[in-house]
């Protein structure tokens, strides 16, 4: 795990730099990002500490944390950082790396939500709420939540029974197959 070899080993920090075009060493740990983070309260590790873990080479700890998945991508941190370090973009890279490396993320339904959402896009080219909810519930077995709001939305004609499909299916298929992770 350590990057302190004489022959430089390609590290997670390098991967992040390649994905985001910014160096984690920019961060001097002022903590302004965590102070303004709307979801900090729910996280196991504060956002600035995820950066610190990467700086110090504790990659496993950073990648398996629930924190990057709880990041809502609101970009408050990126807006306020005195070093102009784009933490939201950094979190995108950490999540992508966790998936690429097959890291088992701590208690996580959020990953299943994203999989379910993207599967609708893969099938139809557009989001389809009923398909999304059904797939997500099958994946998580969280069957009871939202039984209250669904009928309301049906009555008001907000849930489409049939998905809107994109005509050019081939281009959508190509986008997903050509960008799939090996």
């Amino acid at each position, binding site marked *: 795990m350590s990057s302190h070899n004489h022959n430089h080993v390609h590290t997670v920090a390098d991967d992040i730099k390649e994905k985001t075009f910014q160096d984690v060493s920019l961060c001097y740990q002022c903590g302004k990002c965590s102070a303004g983070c709307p979801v900090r309260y729910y996280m196991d590790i504060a956002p600035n500490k995820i950066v610190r873990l990467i700086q110090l080479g504790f990659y496993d700890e950073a990648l398996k944390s629930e924190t990057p998945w*709880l990041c809502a991508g*609101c970009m408050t941190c990126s807006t306020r950082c005195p070093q102009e370090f784009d933490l939201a973009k950094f979190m995108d890279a950490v999540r992508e790396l966790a998936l690429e490396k097959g890291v088992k993320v701590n208690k996580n339904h959020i990953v299943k*939500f994203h999989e379910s959402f993207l599967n609708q896009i893969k099938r139809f080219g557009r989001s389809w709420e009923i398909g999304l909810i059904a797939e997500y519930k099958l994946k998580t077995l969280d069957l009871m939540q939202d039984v209250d709001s669904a009928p*309301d*939305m049906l009555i*008001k004609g907000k*849930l*489409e029974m049939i998905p809107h499909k994109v005509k050019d299916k081939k281009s959508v298929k190509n986008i997903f197959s050509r960008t799939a992770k090996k």
Partner: protein
Amino acid sequence: MKLGYFPGCSQTGTAKEYDISLRKVVEKLGASFDEIQDWTCCGATSAHVTNHLLANSLSMRNIALAEQQGLDDIVAPCAACYNRLVLSQHEIQTQPELKREVELVLDKKLGKEIKVMNLIELFIKIGLDKISENKKTELKNLKVACYYGCLLVRPAAITHFDDAEQPTSMESIVELTGAKPVDWNYKVECCGAAHTLARRDIVLDLSKKILDDAKEHGANVMVVACPMCHSNLDMRQRAMKREYPDHKDFPVLYLTELLGLALGMDEKELGINKHTVEFKYNELPADKAAV
């Protein structure tokens, strides 16, 4: 004035009333839309948090279609779509290697940048004077909390739109309707966004804080410009009431619905009856009305 239009998935489902009211208001103001043919989802949160190349390819497919259709600028009424389309183009224009990769995925050469407008920029483009000229009803009973959320204003260095911490552009539009914007603290706080299914607890918590702050500062309605914010702030109030028994219903309108009311349309016409929390301008309780 004819403008390119990228509706985004929500406009065809949970945010139908946003699409309905937007089209009607734009028509009343003398403009019209040319929809991008066969558009796909922009990838939304789920793509950019899991697969960078997928996210950019989905967004850029739409930009390429817009270019093919000869559109110079497009309107993306969903703040999340707007943000993805602007950020993707920025990355493509500044990272030649990424541009090549996306071109290979799409089998297409990518051309020039296309101006993507959010809802506020759309009305500025049409001309704010058109709103005043066509106004039928003075909405003087409304005290409005203008809610921007995250993705309209951030990251300011790339969106070049208003102030990232203290934006006021929505207030300047709301004022034209005769309604009174209030000063409040949560206008750029996050509602929890895409966590609405997987972490409903977070969404309820954050959204309630936003609604509470609006009430505390004397608002009797909130106005938004994003379907995801709207579903968290309006539809989630049902669950909010179970979780927080002291919660009282608080109406949340799309900016287009507020404008529609000022332009003389009624709630049903604008789709306001599709909301979870009911709103009828003429039935505002006396104690909620502004003085």
